[in-house]
C-alpha cells in the first residue's frame, strides 16, 4: 500500500476543551488511486489532508507512506518527505508572485539540490506536460486562473512525487476552467500518478475513482465509483 493510516487522531486543546479534528481514521490508499475526500467544513478533511501531506503530525495513530512510518518525524525529515514524495496543489494556487512560471515550477528542485541547468530542463518538460511552455517566462499576475493552477500542478509534478495532494483545486475557478483542469488531473492520473483531492463539489469528485466522506473527524463512507 502506498498509504496506510491506522487509528489516526489529531486533537487540539483549545482552552479547557479538547477538539478531535480527526477522531480515529483508518485508511489505505494504493498506488495510482484517485481519491476524493469530501465532507462539510469542520469534518476534519483539511486536517487529514495536512497530515497526509506531512505538513502536520498526528496526535495519535500511525501513518505509513511507502511502507515507512512518517507520523513521528522531525521538521527537517518532514520537509524532505514533502520535497520528494508529495506534490501540493492549493485552492489559492500559492505561487510565488515575484517568480515566473519556470521559477515557480523549479522551486521544489531547488530544495532538492538539483543544479540550475538540470532544473530548467526538467521544469520545462513538466510545463510542456501541462501545456504552458509558452508561458514559462510569465509571472502569475500575467496568467489566468486556470493557467496559474496548471503552473501549480506542474510544480507539484516536478519532483515526481508519490502522491499529488489537491486541496479544492477548482475552488477559485469558474466551472468551465474547472472542467479543463479536471482533464489535466485525469491525464496525470492516467499516466500513473496517485491523486488525493479534497473537494466539496460532487461533479468534481465524480472524476475520481473513490470517494471518502468525512463527518466529525471520522470516515462516514468510502465508495469506489469508477
Amino acid at each position: 500500500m502506498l498509504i496506510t493510516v491506522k487509528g489516526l487522531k489529531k486533537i487540539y486543546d483549545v482552552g479547557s476543551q479538547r477538539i478531535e479534528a480527526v477522531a480515529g481514521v483508518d485508511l489505505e490508499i494504493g498506488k495510482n488511486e484517485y481519491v476524493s475526500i469530501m465532507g462539510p467544513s469542520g469534518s476534519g478533511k483539511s486536517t487529514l489532508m495536512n497530515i497526509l501531506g506531512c505538513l502536520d503530525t498526528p496526535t495519535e495513530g500511525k501513518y505509513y507512506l511507502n511502507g515507512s512510518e512518517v507520523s513521528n518525524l522531525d521538521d527537517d525529515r518532514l520537509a524532505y518527505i514533502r520535497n520528494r514524495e508529495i506534490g501540493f496543489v492549493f485552492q489559492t494556487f500559492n505561487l510565488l508572485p515575484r517568480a515566473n512560471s519556470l521559477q515557480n515550477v523549479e522551486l521544489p528542485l531547488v530544495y532538492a539540490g538539483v543544479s540550475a541547468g538540470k532544473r530548467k530542463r526538467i521544469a520545462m518538460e513538466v510545463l510542456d506536460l501541462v501545456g504552458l511552455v509558452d508561458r514559462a517566462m510569465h509571472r502569475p499576475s500575467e496568467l489566468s486562473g486556470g493557467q496559474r493552477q496548471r503552473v501549480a500542478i506542474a510544480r507539484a509534478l516536478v519532483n515526481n512525487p508519490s502522491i499529488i495532494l489537491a486541496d479544492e483545486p477548482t475552488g477559485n475557478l469558474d466551472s468551465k476552467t474547472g472542467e479543463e483542469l479536471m482533464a489535466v488531473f485525469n491525464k496525470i492520473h492516467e499516466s500513473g500518478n496517485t491523486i488525493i483531492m479534497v473537494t466539496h463539489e460532487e461533479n468534481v469528485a465524480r472524476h475520481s475513482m473513490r470517494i471518502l466522506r468525512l463527518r466529525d473527524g471520522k470516515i462516514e463512507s468510502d465508495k469506489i465509483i469508477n
Partner: protein
Amino acid sequence: MTNGKSDLKRLSRGDTENSGGAIWHENFRQAINILRSHKMRSGLLIVGVAIGVTTVLAIVTVMSGLDKRVQQDILSVNKPYLIVSRFDPFAGTKDKRDLMRRKKLTSSDAEAIEDRCPTVDRVDLQVNAEGMMSVLRYGNERTNLIQVMGASHNFGYMFSFSIEKGRFFTKFEQDHKARVIVLGYGPAKDLFPHRGPIGKMIKIGTHRYKVVGTMGSRENIMGSISDNYAIIPYTIYEKDRSSKRDDYQIAITIRDGFTLEKGIEETTALLRKRRGVKPGEENNFYITTSETFKEMLGNITKYIGLVLVVISSIGLMVGGIGVMNIMLISVTERTREVGIRMAVGAKKKDILQQFLIEAVVLTGIGGIMGIILGMFAARGVAMLIHFPYSVPIIWIIIAFVFSSSIGLIFGLYPANKAAGMDPIVALRAE
C-alpha cells in the same frame, strides 16, 4: 499522454544530488529580487548602513593620517636618536623637586659622549628655559613672545627642519660664540614681511644677532606654536641668556650598524661615571629614544582612535536596528511565501539562510557604499587640514566584514522568526 509516467520517472529520480549550492544560489537570487522590488525600502536601509560605515571609515582614515602626521611633525628626524635629559619628562610629578636638584647636563658631557662613545655618530646639545619667552625686534617690527633655544650646529643636521632661506649656523660660529640666529617660520614672517631676512641684525633684549637662516613652515597640526621659535648657538646662549631655569638635553644619533640599545649602554656607562653614580645606585639622568617617543604618541592616537571608532560604531548599530526592523516587516509580508517554500520542501535552515542572505546583501551593499563615501570623506578632511591621506586596506576589509556582520546579527532574529513558522499557518496567511 501515453508515456507520461515514464517521462516523469526519467525526469527527476536520481537527479537529486542534493548540493547546498542550488539553495545558496536561489537564496542569493531571491535577495537581489527582493531588493529590486522594494527599491525605496532597501535603498533607505542601505543608506543608513552606508552612513554608519562612512563615519567609522572616515574616522579611522583620519586617525591613521593623524598618526602619520604626528610622527612626521613632532618627530621630524632623519635618523632615530637618543635623548639624554635629567629626568623623564613624562614620569609624573612625584619627587619633582628631587629631580630638579639633579646636576644639569653640560656641554662637556656632550663633548665626552661624542669623543668617547664609538657607537655615537653626532651629538646635539640643546638648552632651553621652560617658560622663558622673549620678544624679537627688527626696526619697528616685533614678534610675539617666542621661545629662544640654544643648540649645537648638529641640530640642523639631526632634525629635519627645512631651511627656507640661508643656512643653519656652523661649528665655527658655535665655537666662536658668534651672535647668529636661525628664525622659525613665525618670527621670520613677523619681522621680515617684505624683505629678505638674511644678514639682518635683530635684537633680543639688548643683544643683537645676525640672521643666518630661516625655517620653513612646518604646517603643523599644532598650528603656529610650533613655528614660533628661534635657535642660537648654545655657546652664546650660555653667555647671553643663562638662567637658573635652563635645562639641557643631549640628542645623540648612532652610527650605521649599531643599535640604539648599544648607544644607550655606552652613554649610560659614561654618564654614570661622569655624574658620580655609585654601582647599584639609580641613574641620575634619563635616556629615552625617539622610538619610544614615537611609540608613546602612537599609543595616544591609537586610543583616541579606538574611542572614536567605538562611538561611531553606535551609528552602525542604529543601522543594524533598521535592518532588523525592515527584515521583520519583510518576514511578516512574506509569511505565505515562507509557507509555500516549506510546503515544497524547504527546511528551516533553508528559510533561515534565505533571510540572512537578504540582510547580509543589504548591509553588504551599504558597507561597500560606505567604504567609497568614507574614503571621499576622509580625503576631504585630509585636504582641509593637510593630513597625509591614507586608507588602510585592512580597515576596508574590516568595514566590509563588519557591515555584513551587522546584517547577520540583526537579521538573525527576523530570519529565525521566519524559519520557525508553522507551514500550515503560514500558508493560510493573507
